[in-house]
């Protein structure tokens, strides 16, 4: 086929104009891939972090448990069924007992969740081993956000008050044994982790739990009466939704950039078809058919994106590789308001599908934009073209 060769020659022959379009288009390439990679990385990181710290390999919820209804928490506990108890004893699951509580650090009231967890558990990555302490005081583990919000430090003692299973208020002093650094706010904000057995006896909920976290990799999820299995898809749907929403915001940026590049190419095409009528007439006189000429001009436009992909590869690959290595440092403030699971740096993830998909998308859009103005050629008479006239 000679058309691609001719198109490339014409394109390179056009010089500066071509390269300006190519550079703008290459920005779109790099930005699309970078932003998409960032969102992909964000999603992946959040998913992994939250799975490690909270979701494990799925959960069983006591049938009344609803994380969005604090009032129901009062009744969201019952004896751990035997089948789950076996898993817990085999370290393939961890029971969590949740109760509403209030603490009074520096005399100010904070409503929190008190969560009981086995200090020896290994199902989630929380540093629960610090809770393995003897003594009168209740050992408590909190996260950095909680520590910041309450002013609590390691070694501090704080009064905790809760209602037991009969609804009677009870209170103890809890001692902060560790402040854990975690990127997952949902195990941190307004909560206090305490040893499960102590909590069970203090609340008179012997052997009871609100939910059971399964170890990652668990494959069998038998029916347990009174308990509802929540799979990973359910547990992760908030993250998936959040990532999706955020990436829509990001796609607006590159849609604008892509539109600009497309406008530049459309403009170039319109101008070149207007200016090169005589050339088209000459091509027709030499025996080129109109459809070949349309192909030629369309390909010339479309090749902008091929060149742009090459140019983008030249500066984009090192740039993207560098950003994938160093990540994007998150500002301190992002800790509280950002997405769960993003630690100090957001590491973009570029999949083959993402790169190939972006290239194909841009190629397709450029081809369409390049083709549209060429339809004028289909009606062009050779004699008019040779006289430099366009009808």
């Amino acid at each position, binding site marked *: 086929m000679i058309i691609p060769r001719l198109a490339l*020659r014409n394109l390179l022959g056009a010089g500066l104009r071509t390269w300006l379009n190519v550079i703008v288009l290459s920005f779109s390439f790099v930005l699309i891939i970078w932003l998409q990679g960032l969102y992909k990385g964000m999603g992946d990181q959040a998913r992994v972090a939250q799975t490690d710290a909270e979701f494990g390999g799925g959960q069983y919820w006591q049938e009344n448990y609803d994380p969005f209804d604090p009032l129901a928490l009062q009744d969201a506990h019952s004896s751990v069924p035997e089948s789950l108890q076996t898993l817990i004893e085999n370290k393939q699951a961890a029971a969590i007992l949740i109760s509403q509580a209030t603490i009074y650090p520096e005399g100010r009231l904070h409503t929190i969740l008190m969560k009981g967890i086995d200090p020896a558990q290994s199902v989630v990555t929380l540093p629960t081993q610090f809770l393995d302490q003897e003594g009168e005081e209740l050992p408590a583990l909190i996260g950095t956000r909680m520590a910041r919000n309450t002013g609590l430090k390691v070694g501090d003692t704080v009064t905790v008050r809760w209602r037991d299973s009969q609804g009677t208020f009870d209170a103890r002093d809890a001692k902060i044994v560790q402040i854990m650094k975690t990127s997952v706010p949902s195990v941190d904000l307004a909560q206090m982790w305490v040893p499960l057995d102590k909590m069970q006896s203090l609340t008179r909920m012997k052997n009871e739990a609100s939910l059971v976290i399964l170890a990652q990799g668990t494959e069998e999820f038998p029916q347990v009466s009174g308990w509802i299995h929540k799979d990973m898809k359910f547990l992760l749907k908030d993250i998936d939704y959040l990532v999706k929403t955020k990436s829509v915001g990001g796609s607006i940026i590159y849609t604008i950039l892509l539109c600009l590049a497309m406008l530049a190419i459309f403009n170039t095409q319109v101008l070149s078809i207007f200016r090169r009528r005589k050339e088209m007439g000459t091509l027709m*006189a030499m025996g080129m058919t109109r459809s070949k000429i349309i192909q030629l001009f369309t390909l010339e436009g479309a090749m902008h994106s091929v060149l742009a992909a090459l140019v983008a590869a030249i500066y984009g690959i090192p740039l993207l590789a560098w950003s994938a290595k160093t990540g994007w440092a998150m500002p301190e403030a992002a800790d509280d308001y950002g997405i769960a699971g993003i630690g100090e740096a957001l590491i973009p993830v570029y999949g083959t599908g993402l790169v190939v998909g972006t290239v194909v998308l841009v190629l397709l859009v450029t081809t369409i934009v390049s083709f549209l103005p060429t339809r004028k050629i289909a009606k062009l008479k*050779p004699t008019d073209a040779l006289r430099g006239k366009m009808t």
Partner: protein
Amino acid sequence: MDNSYLIKTDELVKIFPMGETSIIALNHVNLMFKKAEFAGLVGPSGSGKTTLLNIIGSLDSPTEGSTTVMGQKIEDLSHKQGAELRNQHIGFIFQTFNLLPVYTVFENVEFPLLLLGLSPQERQDKVMKALEWVQLADRVKSKPAQLSGGESQRVAIARAVVKEPKIILADEPTANLDAENSHNILQTMEKINNELETTFIFATHDEKVIQYLRRKITLIDGKVAKDEVYDNPTGRGEEQ
């Protein structure tokens, strides 16, 4: 039909509608051209020379009448067949040279051969041969912008002749050239006409061109007013 004729026009009429009125550019033109003719359509501006050349070259279609080129009725050809006819058998030379600006001299001349699908080796040989005819073999790498008018037109001649077509149609080929260059390109075309037996049809009102013609067809208001044959044109004698 007489097969010894390469081109035959039969009662050609071309009318251009112009708003309320219309212009009769060709008015019942009957002409025949044989192999190896060196003929010119001569006449004042607006007499229909270009229109006739375009119809013969299948770039335009007549309002009435018919044209036969190499045994094919032009008006029956599809777009694609018309393009094929031009590609294989007709070379065009324009007043404004119409070289492709981003291509080198070599690439410009090579272009028709690319369309014909010739192999690189064949293309190389034919392009160099054509450029030798027009004495530009040393300018293969130049771009059109670096050429003078005379050189540009010689490249255009090489481009028209490279595929060794049966017919070359030249519309005012000297209008943008000075006397010396005009004579130079006419002598080149005469040489090609002699060696390859290519039929040349000019549209011109340039005396320098007319001197070289062996057949002079005078058009006035779209009609053939005179059709004269010269056995011994004066042009050659004058320059040598």
